[in-house]
């Protein structure tokens, strides 16, 4: 292949609020540039994980290189870098943005700007990207492109009057978008003659090639045989292959040079060594300094994951190992629960990340899991001055050793139409929110800012938000820091025995309410036994709530009819099978589902 003219490269991404049509536009761009025929086009080419397509969100960044013959007669190379679309993956988004020179901002012609639109566009502007807007879904009856244009100019402050009006779904206006990419997004800078400096914005594990590192070459060049070093992790390796991203495939090439986006492989065994945000340089001719912005990704949400069948523990371990190969932000370490046996304490970026991993374990690895209530990382300051980061409530030190505790707080932005400001603020108050401000975007919409404890939003905050705003509110947040808080550990005793896997940390003021609900929920979950079972909630050894599962008085089939005993046997088998799915706590059998019931405390 002839040397690529750096001035004919465009590295860009698409930013949007969820459901505003980012992935659909990406599909159309790929389709229009002719690398795929319509027939080959599977809906949403970029979201290629089954789970992603089902949930309609992008989890891992996907990237594709396409060739565009512009109206000026030149051939351009477009590198379209898809970004994850959820707050859980904000850091990944920021690294993907750093690999771009510009961004297309997609705004829904009917809904206008939403909380994520703002969050993402500010993130793009922070990375000095040239952003141009397109107005999507102009085919909708409720589309109001003029209003949305004004909104973009007023709220974001970028020129929007000549924004392409498109319908990505129907393929309307895509040419305009492609031309705008050529004109409005700058060509990449950097010199191929400088020492190698490449940004890792993603990586995937391949069982044949090892880790495939997705990178943007900022300076210098890299080719097969080059000895490289990851500046943050310190890992070194020899490049085996470089190439670029065809749609759905990796296409090897001779060399990647400054301005280009592509991949490299170097027989790297673990994605841990190729952290997103790290800088790749030439081991023998290193660059002066790494690229800015690298940070170690920390888990925000923890939970215990146990195989429903204890014998599947090694399978769960293997499955987590495999997922970890591809997902550096997944953390896990073995733990033992008296109630649940051997399992893992797993750390995630957020609740969505948790759910995705859980679903993949169950679906792709065919595991039946028992998951304990997710919690955040609390900081426990002990009287002896030591600070421990608590991820498992069971490890809380004795109260006498605790000086004080801190919990993580997030800054949240909620975009909502004005009629729902009341209910949304009420929700935030209920969740121990601290009101910061209300800004009116336009007459009918406002951006409400709150500081909220992370543990109040990890369960069902998003659902509550949607239901109290009839689906109109949108929400984004970022970590603010830790604050001292009056926290207690709520213990659950079943038949007077504490069940470690059911303990959770809760604010002292809501302990009674949560304890009471938990007891009620467990009463529904635990079947009647031959004896009476008290279910108690306790804080610091003091019982604060109690329910009782009455003893079973009767379990008898009156009639065994006409010699048809198969029905009878099925009934007995069901009873027996039910028992197998139970966990034995002392003399009480508890169904697996009980351990998840803490998640459903707010069900009305």
């Amino acid at each position: 292949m002839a040397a690529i003219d750096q001035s004919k490269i465009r590295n860009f991404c698409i930013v949007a609020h969820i459901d505003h049509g980012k992935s659909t536009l990406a599909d159309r761009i790929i389709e229009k540039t002719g690398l795929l025929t319509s027939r080959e086009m599977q809906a949403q080419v970029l979201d290629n994980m089954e789970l992603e397509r089902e949930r309609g969100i992008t989890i891992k960044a996907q990237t594709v290189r396409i060739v565009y013959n512009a109206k000026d007669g030149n051939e351009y190379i477009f590198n379209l870098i898809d970004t994850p679309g959820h707050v859980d993956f904000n850091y990944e988004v920021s690294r993907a943005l750093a690999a771009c020179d510009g961004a297309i901002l997609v705004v829904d012609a009917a809904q206008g700007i939403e909380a994520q639109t703002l969050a993402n566009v500010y993130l793009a502007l922070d990375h000095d990207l040239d952003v141009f807007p397109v107005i999507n879904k102009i085919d909708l009856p409720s589309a109001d492109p003029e209003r949305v244009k004004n909104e973009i100019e007023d709220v974001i402050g970028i020129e929007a009057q000549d924004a392409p009006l498109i319908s990505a779904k129907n393929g309307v206006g895509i040419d305009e978008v492609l031309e705008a990419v050529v004109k409005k997004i700058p060509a990449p800078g950097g010199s191929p003659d400088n020492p190698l400096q490449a940004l890792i914005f993603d990586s995937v594990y391949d069982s044949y090639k090892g880790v495939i590192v997705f990178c943007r070459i900022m300076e210098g060049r890299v080719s097969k045989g080059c000895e490289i070093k990851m500046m943050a992790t310190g890992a070194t390796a020899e490049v085996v292959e470089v190439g670029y991203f065809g749609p759905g495939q990796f296409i090897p090439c001779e060399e990647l040079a400054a301005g280009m986006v592509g991949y490299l492989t170097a027989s790297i065994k673990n994605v841990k060594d190729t952290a997103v945000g790290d800088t790749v340089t030439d081991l023998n001719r290193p660059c002066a300094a790494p690229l800015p912005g690298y940070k170690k990704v920390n888990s925000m949400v923890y939970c215990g994951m146990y195989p429903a069948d204890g014998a599947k523990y090694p399978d769960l371990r293997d499955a987590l190992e495999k997922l970890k190969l591809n997902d550096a932000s997944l953390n896990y370490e073995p733990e033992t629960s008296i109630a649940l046996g051997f399992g893992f304490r797993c750390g995630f970026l957020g609740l969505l990340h948790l759910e995705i991993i859980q679903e993949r374990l169950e679906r792709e690895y065919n595991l039946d899991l028992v998951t304990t209530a997710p919690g955040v990382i609390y900081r426990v300051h002990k009287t002896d001055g030591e600070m421990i980061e608590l991820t498992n409530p069971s490890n809380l030190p004795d109260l006498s050793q605790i000086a004080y505790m801190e919990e993580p707080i997030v800054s949240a932005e909620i975009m909502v139409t004005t009629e729902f400001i009341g209910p949304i603020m009420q929700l935030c108050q209920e969740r121990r929110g601290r009101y910061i401000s209300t800004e009116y975007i336009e007459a009918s919409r406002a951006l409400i800012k709150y500081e909220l404890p992370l543990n109040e939003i990890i369960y069902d905050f998003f659902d509550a938000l949607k239901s109290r705003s009839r689906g109109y509110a949108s929400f984004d947040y970022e970590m603010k820091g830790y604050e001292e808080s009056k926290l207690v550990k709520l213990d659950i005793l079943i038949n007077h025995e504490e069940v470690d896997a059911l303990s959770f940390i809760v604010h002292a003021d809501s302990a009674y309410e949560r304890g009471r609900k938990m007891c009620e929920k467990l009463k529904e979950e635990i079947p009647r036994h031959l004896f009476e079972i008290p279910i108690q909630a306790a804080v610091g050894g003091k019982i604060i709530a109690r329910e009782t599962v009455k003893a079973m008085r009767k379990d008898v089939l009156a009639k065994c009819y006409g010699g048809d005993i198969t029905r009878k046997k099925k009934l007995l088998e069901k009873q027996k099978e039910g028992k197998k799915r139970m966990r034995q706590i002392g003399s009480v059998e508890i169904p697996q589902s009980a351990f998840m019931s803490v998640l459903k405390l707010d069900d009305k």
Partner: protein
Amino acid sequence: MDELSIYLHIPFCVRKCLYCDFLSFPVCGDGNTAENKHTGKSYVNLISPQKAAWVESYVNLIRDEIIRTAPEYKKYRVISVFVGGGTPSLLPTGAMRAILDAVRSGYRLEEDAEITLEMNPDTVTEEKLREYITCGINRLSIGLQSADDAELARIGRIHDYGTFAQAYETARRVGFANINIDLMAALPGQTIAAYGRTLRRVAALAPEHISAYSLTLEESTPLYERRREFSFPPEEEEREMYALTGTYLASCGYHRYEISNYARDGFECRHNKVYWRRGNYVGFGLGASSMTENVRWKNPTDGERYRNYVDALARAAEAGGSAGLREKNAEEFALQRLSVPEQMEEFMFLGLRMMRGVSGRTFRRVFGADMEETYGAVIGKLCGQGLLERDGERVRLTERGIDLSNYVMAQFLFD
């Protein structure tokens, strides 16, 4: 010579009772009611003309099935016949005779075989009952359910107590010396006192046998659909009714020999005990269940498929006989060849339904294995929980074990 019991399924009734989930179809049109001095209506010989041909063709089918499968059972002598349903007494006596004649012609029916007919009070006359005796029927099982007319109406029964009393008296008069009365406890709106009155009235009639079942709410029934309209006695009261049944009937000379069955000495139902003791039995008719030589199967429940089966039987004589035919369509017949562990499970959970329980000696004779070795741990645990008790080599349910018998029996299933 091996023993065999025969069940004959007659899937017709006047109308479905609200709690009924048995395989049965109403065959009496609404317009087909005639005067009856007690209820103002009677269903005697009143299968609606539209359904008569269907009923007749069914009678022919079941006769064909009985006769065509007979070669398979040459080695057995038949010790009991049970005609159940549905409401078999709805059939014209000619049809009943034809069916029983088919059994007699194809099988070695013992002289003293127990031949039971299930009947509902509203479907018989003195003449019909006399005919039954000449058919060889020597035991009646009458579905009374309750002596309280309001309770009967609530669960959709078509008769009242007066009709029953008259039918019972007539049955006695024409010579039936072995009668069972079916009762139900825990009916909607039933109090313990009202149930006690039913028990007293029934015991006063001195039937040889009483079955007293607690109402089981089955999901596929109208009673279940409409369960919120009714008030069912709470579990505690249901158990009290159960206890009352045992103590009161004992004082009247009946002993409980199975969870829900009571008899005067010498009148335990021979047919039912075959099920619990895992004797050989064959069921004829739509959806009827069978077990012979540790093979279980069930006839098709779909009319068309049942007809096809009986038709195929006509040609099966050469090709491996009726058993071979079922063997070839094992799935359709839910045919199951019981393994030894499965036989052991059944031995335990069916045998424990009987108050005398199961015997270690029988276990050894049947399986050549020691019951203690196989189930000692389970039995020990359940004895410890007060649910089972030992009596020499026998093991049986305690009173509390009866209340929780499903739990107890489930313990005997292997993993």
